[in-house]
């Protein structure tokens, strides 16, 4: 299937591309790329804001819920919730860093963490 397709294309494809480019030039459409990339980055900004905030908030929520659950089981009422809420904030920051690609890949933090520990020492 692929072969027959690409044969077809090599016969008329280049011709067609050439003609499309010519037509776009004649219609004055050969420079619309700038506008388009601007609107795409706007859209990305909104999507990014949504992504990062949901990552951050969800970790805090999970921390609070985990802490509340532990309190409920063990009966140490406010303490586990306070501790896990704070840990939730930390996990939220970690999530945001991961989602924004500051820590590339999920477990590349080894290198970073080691470096920061070495710095401290």
């Amino acid at each position, binding site marked *: *299937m692929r072969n*027959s397709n690409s044969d077809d294309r090599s016969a008329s494809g280049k011709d067609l591309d050439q003609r499309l480019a010519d037509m776009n030039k004649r219609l004055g459409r050969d420079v619309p790329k700038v506008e388009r990339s601007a609107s795409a980055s706007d859209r990305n900004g909104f999507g990014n804001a949504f992504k990062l905030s949901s990552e951050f908030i969800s*970790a805090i929520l999970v921390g609070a819920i985990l802490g509340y659950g532990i309190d409920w089981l063990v009966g140490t009422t406010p303490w586990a919730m306070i501790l896990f809420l704070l840990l939730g904030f930390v996990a*939220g920051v970690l999530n945001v860093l991961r989602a924004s690609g500051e820590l590339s890949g999920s477990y590349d933090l*080894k290198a970073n963490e*080691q470096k920061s520990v070495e710095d401290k020492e």
Partner: protein
Amino acid sequence: MANDPISQFNIKELIPLEIGSTNISFTNSSLFMVATVIVTSAFFIWATSRRGMIPTRAQSFAETTYEFVANMLRDAAGSDGMRFFPLVFSLFLFILVINMFGMFPYFFTVTSHIIITVALALLVFFTVIAYGLYKNGLGFFKLFVPSGVPVFVLPLVVLIEIISFFSRPISHSVRLFANMLAGHITLKVFAGFIVSMGSVGAVGVVGAILPFLMTIGLTALEFLVAFLQAYVFTLLTCMYLNDALHAGDH
């Protein structure tokens, strides 16, 4: 149709049903889920029934969709991730078609209810846990223990990793739900402006052109969001499945 932007999300019972005290009525939400499944499977069965060497338009569309999802999964989870292809492909099509259905006027948007998106996200979450434990055994828990962390901060890091892991289904589901909900409310609000300005008088009718243009723009944007959110949901699914497949490798 009511003029407030929220009433479009009302659940209506079409066929009331009850088992014991549990309400399992067939609602407008169920109707659109059933319609999605039927339309999607009917299209793919019809499009691939001919299996021609030279694909028809429908067949090449089906093949392109297949390739699109397959490449996404292969890139994110490697070629052994392809065992999850049926799950990922179904999820992608289900969400995409539901979102697109939601763009029709008077249609119900199923993904604007968080219970649906949470159910889908939890399906992925439990698949990751179950398959991760089955494949890696206890090695799956290495997911929470990044290597190269000094022992004295390890407990803290493990706790943070666990919280981060459990926050996944929440952000996974909230992102889809909130985008669909917010988008549809915005559309409705701007469309409502047209009506209320139009009722003011001649000046209002002329002024109503502005929210009308905005509504057109937002509709186009919503189509983009409908696709993008289906894509993002699937992409995250692939990344989480990757963790299940390769948790023991660290």
